[in-house]
């Protein structure tokens, strides 16, 4: 089948569609309702909620920071506070960058480039988050034990952590592997898009 033949069939579909019943006024306006919204809005809502919880946790640590009475606990507390503030802020920033891409004002090629760039940034932040979660897991134990039970786990280790910590690490490895695979899948398709455009002058 050559292009001319395909064009003839294509124009026939156009004529058939013209003959079909027109889509109703109500249906068109229903499709424009805000409730449908951008799918990223949903993701952004969950991420915003998650970020809010992280910020509250960071605030709790900061308000009780004076309870951390040794240099290593202060270090753990400071790193953990930084984690709870920086990571969600970076994720939110990347998400809102994607949301802000206006698809009507730019051409296809420009949109692809902007989109792939923003998507890669978001994925990079999420991958960074996977690694930082392991560090945070190790920091949470001493900081929260001190803040809520007034126990220094480095001086008086709690036996519960002997089995709980490996379980948490295994769980996190599983979640991270799943997350990493998702990351690989998305970035691979993004790379394919860029390859399509590499010989295009934008």
């Amino acid at each position, binding site marked *: 089948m050559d292009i001319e033949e395909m064009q003839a069939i294509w124009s*026939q579909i156009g004529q058939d569609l013209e003959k079909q019943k027109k889509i109703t006024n109500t249906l068109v306006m229903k499709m*424009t309702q805000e409730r449908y919204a951008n799918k990223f809005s949903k*993701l952004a809502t969950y991420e915003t909620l998650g970020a809010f919880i992280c910020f509250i946790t960071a605030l709790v640590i900061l308000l009780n920071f004076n309870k951390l009475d040794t240099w290593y606990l202060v270090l753990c507390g400071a790193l953990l506070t930084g984690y709870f503030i920086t990571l969600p802020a970076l994720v939110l920033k990347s998400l809102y960058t994607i949301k802000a891409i*206006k698809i009507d004002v730019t*051409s*296809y090629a420009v*949109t692809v480039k902007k989109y792939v760039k923003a998507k890669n940034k978001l994925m990079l932040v999420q991958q960074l988050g996977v690694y930082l979660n392991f560090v945070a897991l190790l920091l949470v134990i001493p900081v929260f034990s001190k803040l809520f039970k007034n126990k220094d786990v480095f001086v008086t280790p709690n036996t519960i952590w002997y089995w709980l910590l490996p379980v948490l690490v295994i769980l996190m490895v599983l979640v991270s592997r799943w997350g990493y695979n998702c990351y690989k899948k998305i970035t691979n398709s993004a790379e394919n898009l860029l390859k399509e455009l590499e010989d295009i*002058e934008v």
Partner: protein
Amino acid sequence: MTKEEKFVELIQNNQGLIFKITTVYTTNKTDQQDLYQDIVYQLWKSFDGFKNQSKISTWMYRVALNTALTRLKKKIKAPKSIAIEKVVLQQTENYDPVFEERLKMVYAQIQQLNVLEKALMLLLLEGKQYDEIAEIVGITASNVGTKISRIKQKMKNNILNK
């Protein structure tokens, strides 16, 4: 005429354009309905921004193709879509099985192309000139020509390999 009335008329007059794009960029009816709704929503959202600097069809293709493209990469659990099959996706009264078979062949050929090639092919089949395709897609007209030659070659090879 109110803004809503103008918009409804625009969609009604161009429902075929949206339908064709959704067919090329989806593989099942649910996805197609979802994309159809997404395109209408995006057109409505950017309707105010349309300044008549380009042809209305150019603007519509641009928004619709960009929506299809960005949607392909989201793949996030879709919200419930509004059923449109009874008004847009129905069979025509003069159903012709031979034509249907040939149409399936056209779609099968297009489905083998990548995202950008699909857009170029779709616009070529719509009878657009290279200049207009270039404006919609955002590449130079000479690039459009080169890419279309490659697509033709690719399609020829696909047929020969079968």
